[in-house]
């Protein structure tokens, strides 16, 4: 059966964390609602977008105001896919300590990547690590 609503696509260059995040949250929320994603999915996706965009600005671009974050989204009735790309040198996600290990539990930072992996169906950091691809698939 053909999709009842046309697939949503967007591409943005974000220059300011606060404004950019607010804009992509609003846009994604409307598209997810139009494509029948339930509240649990919307919660998961909002969290993942938030963590990805914040990490891109703060860690990827190291809060350099001359650098931007590139955000792309594709949402249809079965999945919501996003790309978040910063202008930094990249990183190896395998080097991030597991925040759920006992010795790391009381460290206040370092949970963003873990939450993205926990809430999204597919997560890929494309080498050198400044491009994140993530997808949430509706359960069959």
């Amino acid at each position, binding site marked *: 059966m053909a999709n009842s609503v046309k697939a949503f696509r967007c591409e943005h260059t974000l220059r300011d964390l606060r404004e950019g*995040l607010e804009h992509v949250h609003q846009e994604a929320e409307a598209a997810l609602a139009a494509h029948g994603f339930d*509240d649990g999915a919307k919660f998961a996706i909002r969290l993942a977008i*938030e*963590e990805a965009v914040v990490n891109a600005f703060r860690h990827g671009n190291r809060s350099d105001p001359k650098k931007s974050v590139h955000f792309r989204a594709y949402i249809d009735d079965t999945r919501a896919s996003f790309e978040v790309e910063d202008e930094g040198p990249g990183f190896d996600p395998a080097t991030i300590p597991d925040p*759920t290990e006992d010795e790391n*539990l009381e460290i206040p*930072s*370092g*949970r*963003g990547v873990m939450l993205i992996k926990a809430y999204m169906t597919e997560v890929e950091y494309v080498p050198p690590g400044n491009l994140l691809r993530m997808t949430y698939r509706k359960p069959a």
Partner: protein
Amino acid sequence: MASSHISVRKTDNLIRIDFIDRNILDELNIHQIGEEILKVVESEFRPKVVVVFKNVEHMSSAAFGTLMKVNERVKARDGQLRLCQITPRIHEAFVMTKLNRIFSISDTYETAVASFV
């Protein structure tokens, strides 16, 4: 000056903190919220602090980090921190990150207050 994101009720050293907006615990506001809570906590010795999540629908890792700083500061003042009325979705995030082992979480404000020692 930016408007406050929390409401605070104090009775002796018992401090109840409620969040005013639904999405306050996201990146956009969390730093200001953290500063506001720390200011309240530091005004008391041996504070018994209950943070009520009744109105909160979204959470982020930045918010977890802020709560952990608040917890440290409360402990440093020989106080106790309780969290309560957390929605099932946000509670799931606490469990996923294992932070339910760091924080004392109660279902209601009353049970949170009753759990202080």
